């Protein structure tokens, strides 16, 4: 069904119809991710970004990123970066890992200025990039600006 038809249907029924827009990653964040990936394609998968879906206090939001990788000398994660959509800056944190890490598993606490999308990107030793994005709802924002 076309969006127009759906809206007309809504009007016809005397109700307000809101069409949930598919939340596209903001172009600014896409640019930041592209910069991290050096132009290589970033595929969804392998990465798991754990963040509470509902955040009461944006000043310290716990996040954990894990990546499916054997972390061997020949096949490991070399980096993990986290990007955000609506803070003053797109970058959150960039980790560098290696075979010594044993596991690709990092946690930290971050600030979120408002409800937004977070994306974790992993860089593998074979030069591929993988990502996972999560939408977060923030009820009390961090004092970022």
């Amino acid at each position, binding site marked *: 069904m076309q969006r127009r038809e759906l809206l007309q249907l809504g009007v016809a029924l005397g109700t307000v119809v809101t069409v949930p827009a598919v939340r596209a990653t903001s172009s600014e964040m896409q640019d930041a991710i592209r910069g991290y990936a050096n132009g290589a394609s970033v595929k969804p998968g392998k990465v798991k970004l754990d963040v509470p879906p509902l955040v009461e206090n944006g*000043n*310290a*939001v716990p996040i*954990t990123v894990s990546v499916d990788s054997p*972390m061997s000398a020949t096949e490991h994660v070399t980096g993990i970066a986290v990007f*955000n959509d609506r*803070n*003053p*800056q797109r*970058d*959150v*944190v*960039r*980790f*560098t*890992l*290696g*075979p*010594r*890490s*044993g*596991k690709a*598993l*990092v*946690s*930290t*606490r*971050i*600030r*979120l200025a408002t409800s937004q999308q977070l994306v974790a990107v992993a860089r593998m030793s074979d030069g591929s990039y993988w990502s996972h994005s999560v939408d977060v709802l923030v009820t009390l924002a*961090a*004092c*970022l*600006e």
Partner: protein
Amino acid sequence: MPTPHSDNMARTLLTVPTTAKRGEVIELRTLIAHIMETGFRPDANGQVKPRDLINRFSCRFNGELVCSAELYPAVAANPYFSFTMLATESGTLSFNWEGDNGFSQSESAVLTVT
């Protein structure tokens, strides 16, 4: 005149095991007291407070990189990190934080692998 932070070290908290079995993957956790002023916030007079951030953190084992991080203003005050390390031999873990206004601090911990 002392440069900021040079006269009083920031408090740190390391949660690391002292012993591990060979081949074990251990969890390392670090916390450091730091304001992480973003450089975006105005003070009571409407003036933007100058940026004061920790920019880099690294953990090395006998000199080899375990995990490092570049920190941006979105990292919460009192930066906390948890990560893992493969224990293969005994040695020294060194932790280093560097930031604005010449901030630099190091800590170390000894790990015995059996």
